[in-house]
Every structure is written in C-alpha cells, then in structure tokens.
C-alpha cells in the first residue's frame, strides 16, 4: 500500500492547480494516510491574509485536510488500486468540530494525517489531524460522499 506515496498527486486526486493542497503523500497504509503541504510565502492570498502578518487561511487548512481525507478514503476502500484514481472520487459532505489550535505561517510544512473511522453506504467518516513540527495545528472530523466519475 505504501507505494501510493511514490505516485504523482495528479494520479491520486482529481483536483488540479490552483486548487491542489497536498504536495505529496508521505505515508499510506490501509485506513491511515499522511500528506505534506507547504503554503509558499509568495502565494497571492498572503497579501490579504493578513497584510504584514501572513497566516495560512483556515479554509485552506480544511481543504488540505479534506484532500488528505479523500486519499485515505480511497486507500481504505481499496478503490484506488482498482480504479487507479479514475473511477471514484469523494465530495466533502460535512465538516465537524474542526479546531484551529495554532496559526500556520507561510513556508511551514503541514503534515496532515487522516484516518478512516467508519464507512457506511457511500459515506465515509474520517478524523484528520494537521501538525507543524510535531505540534497539532488543526484537527477535526469530516464526512465524505463517494461518487463515481
């Protein structure tokens, strides 16, 4: 399963620039996937969020967590191996109790770990934790809906 880490993100996720918020898959095993993402300091949005005090917008951290959750969901259901990432994808259906504990700064490496807790029908519940230098910066639950594309 760990060979997922060697694949190009574009082979795994349906997202494309400028809306890819996973740089690479660090680890993937069964229901647990860890990714990394660096929000580069020259990104346009840092000019406004906030002037002179750039921090990574929470919504982008959520998107990064959701994309990681999607990879974990694919990996957990084994669909990735079957479909090569082309047949199934996941839509974000619910975000539950996401907490932002520490602001994330430009150029920091954010490691998101997603673990599939339960799947039922076409729905998957995933717990995601994002860390910077080993410290939790955000965590919460997400529910994803599987769709065939």
């Amino acid at each position, binding site marked *: 399963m760990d060979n997922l880490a060697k694949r190009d993100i574009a082979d795994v996720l349906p997202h494309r620039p400028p809306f890819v918020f996973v740089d690479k898959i660090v680890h993937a095993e069964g229901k647990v996937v860890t990714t990394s993402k660096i929000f580069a300091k020259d990104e346009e949005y840092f000019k406004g969020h906030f002037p002179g005090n750039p921090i990574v917008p929470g919504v982008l951290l959520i998107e990064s967590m959701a994309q990681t959750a999607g990879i974990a969901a694919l990996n957990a259901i084994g669909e990735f191996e079957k479909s090569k990432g082309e047949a199934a994808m996941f839509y974000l259906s*619910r975000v539950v109790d996401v907490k932002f504990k520490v602001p994330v700064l430009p150029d920091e490496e954010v490691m998101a770990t997603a673990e599939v*807790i*339960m799947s*039922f*029908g076409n*729905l998957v*519940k995933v717990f995601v934790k994002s860390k910077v230098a080993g410290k939790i910066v955000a965590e919460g639950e997400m*529910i994803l809906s599987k769709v065939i594309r």
Partner: protein
Amino acid sequence: MEKDVEKELYNQVKMMLVKDLRLKIAPEDIKNTDLIFDGGLGLDSIDALELVVAMEKRFKVRIPDATVGAKVLVSVDSIVRFIKEKQQKNG
C-alpha cells in the same frame, strides 16, 4: 422490571438522537413511531452515518451495511428492536 429496562432503552435511543445528531428538540418530544428520515425528524443520509457511529459507540451494536440500515434506521421503535435483538444474541 423488563418494562422499565425497555423504557430506559427507549429514553437512551432518543437521547442519542438528540445529542449525537444535534437535534433541536427534547428527547421526550420524539414519538416512538416518528420517522427518522424522509421528513420525520428532519435528518438526512449524512446523518445516517453519524447514527451508525453513535449506535456502535453507545450500544455496541453494528449496522453492517446500508441494506440493514434501511430497515433499522426508520424509527425509534425499529432502532430499539434492533438493539434488543443484538444484545440478546450477544448475551
């Protein structure tokens, strides 16, 4: 005695619906026959997953798939029936 145990189970299921699915009504306002989905308590298919997780956590019973779920997640009555059956099987 058995009646009391059953009444308590009904109360626990209603409490689970209100707390874990964040319903904006009091447990005692839920009727045993109220439909959980299809416009009854206003829950949707995403809540079904939350309900499956909550039942496993609170009552240690697992709904294995959506087919069983469609039969069990109908009303408080059907949920209580399922929990009782499972708990009797598990001794």
